[in-house]
C-alpha cells in the first residue's frame, strides 16, 4: 500500500449519500482478534469451572455479572471496533444504557417487593 500523506486512505460508500470514509488498516488487527478470542474463551471456561466450586452464592453471582460485563466489553470494543471509533460516537452508543441500569433497579425492587407481599397474604 503506498502512503500518500496529502490524501487520507478511504473509500466512497457509493450509495446515494456517497460519503467518504477514512480507513486506517492496522496489520496487527489479526493478533488483536485472536487475543480477544483467547480472553473470551478463558473467561467462559473459568465461569463454568467456578460454578460448582464451594463458594457463597452471593459472591458467585457478583463474579458472574462482573465477568459478563468484561466479556461484553471485549466483544463491543474489539470485535465491533467501538474502541477505534471516535469517542463521541462511542458515548452516543454507550450512554443510553444508563436507562437500563435504572430499569434493573426498578424492576428487581418491584420483584422483591411482590415476593414479600406474596409471603404476607
Amino acid at each position, binding site marked *: 500500500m503506498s502512503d500518500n500523506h496529502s490524501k487520507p486512505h478511504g*473509500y*466512497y*460508500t*457509493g*450509495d*446515494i*449519500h*456517497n*460519503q*467518504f*470514509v*477514512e*480507513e486506517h*488498516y492496522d496489520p496487527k*488487527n*489479526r493478533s488483536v*482478534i*485472536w487475543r*480477544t*478470542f483467547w480472553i*473470551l*474463551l478463558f473467561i*467462559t*471456561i473459568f*465461569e*463454568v469451572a467456578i*460454578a460448582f466450586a464451594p463458594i457463597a452464592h452471593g459472591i*458467585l*453471582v457478583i463474579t*458472574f*455479572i462482573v*465477568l*459478563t460485563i468484561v*466479556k*461484553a466489553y471485549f*466483544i*463491543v470494543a*474489539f*470485535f*465491533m471496533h467501538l474502541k477505534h*471509533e*471516535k469517542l*463521541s*460516537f462511542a458515548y*452516543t*452508543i454507550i450512554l*443510553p*444504557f444508563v*436507562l*437500563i441500569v435504572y*430499569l*434493573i433497579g426498578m*424492576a*428487581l425492587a*418491584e*420483584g*422483591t417487593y*411482590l*415476593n414479600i407481599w*406474596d409471603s404476607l397474604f
Partner: protein
Amino acid sequence: MAAEATMTQETGTKSMWNGGRSPFNVSWGKMMMWFFLVSDAFTFSSLIIAYGAMRHRFEAVWPKANDVFTHFPFIEGHIPLAYVGLMTFILIMSSVTMVLAVDAGHRRDNKGVAVWLFLTIIGGFMFLGSQAWEWYHFIHGTEVGAYLAPDGSVYRDVSNAYQLHASNPPAGSLVAPDYTLISDKSAIEAIKAKSEHIHGANLTHNEYGHPLFADFFFFITGFHGFHVFSGVMINIIIFLNVLAGVYSRRGHYEHIEKTGLYWHFVDLVWVFVFTFFYLV
C-alpha cells in the same frame, strides 16, 4: 435537491450532512446499524430484566438451571453447563471468523472474505442445531416426569433434583417446589392422587418448576435464536454477493462490516443469556 446531490457526487468529499463529512467518521449505513443494535439491545434488556423481576418474585420456588439442562449428546448422566458452554464456544468462534472476514475485507482479499464468511455461516447453523437440541430436551422432559398439583405447585421426582443427591434421599421420594423432601409414603400417595402427571415443559406447565421459567426460556432464547437465524440468512446473502464479486467491483467491503456488527451483537446477547439463565 437533485442538483445538490449531483454536486455532492462530483465534489466527493462533501456528504449529505452539510458539514462536509460525517462528524463521527462513520458512514450513514454503519451508524444506522449501530442505532438499530442499541434499540435491539433495549428490547433484549427489557426481556431479561422482566425475567429477573419474576425470578426475584418467585425466588423460593424458581427452578435451578443445573437441574433442568443436564444433557450432553452421546454421554449418559448428569452433566450440567457443559453443553451450553459448548454452544457459547461455537458462537464466540463464529464471531472470530466473522471479524476475520471483516479484516480480510479491509485488505480487499475477496477470497479470504468468502472463506471466513462461509465458516461463520457453518458456525451459525451449528449453534441453531444446538439450540434445537436443547429445546427438544426441555420440551420432552424426563421419563419419570413430575406431579402438577391443582394449586399449581410442581412436585418432582427426587432423581431429577440433583441438589439433594448428596444427602442420599430414598428413591421414589418427591421434592416440593421449595426443595423440601417428601419421603413419607402416604404423603406421596396423597400428592399423586390429586395431581396431574406431566412431562417436560411448554407455555402452560413446566415439570421442572415454575411455569414462568419455561415461558421466559422459550421467549428469550427463541427471540435470540430467531436473531441468529436472521443473521445466518443475511450472511448467506452477503456470501453469495462476495462470490459474485459485488464488493470487489464496488471497491470496499463495508457491507461485511455492517453484517459483522449484527452478528457480534447476537453473540453479545448470548453472553448475557448464558449468565442469567444458566450460571446465576
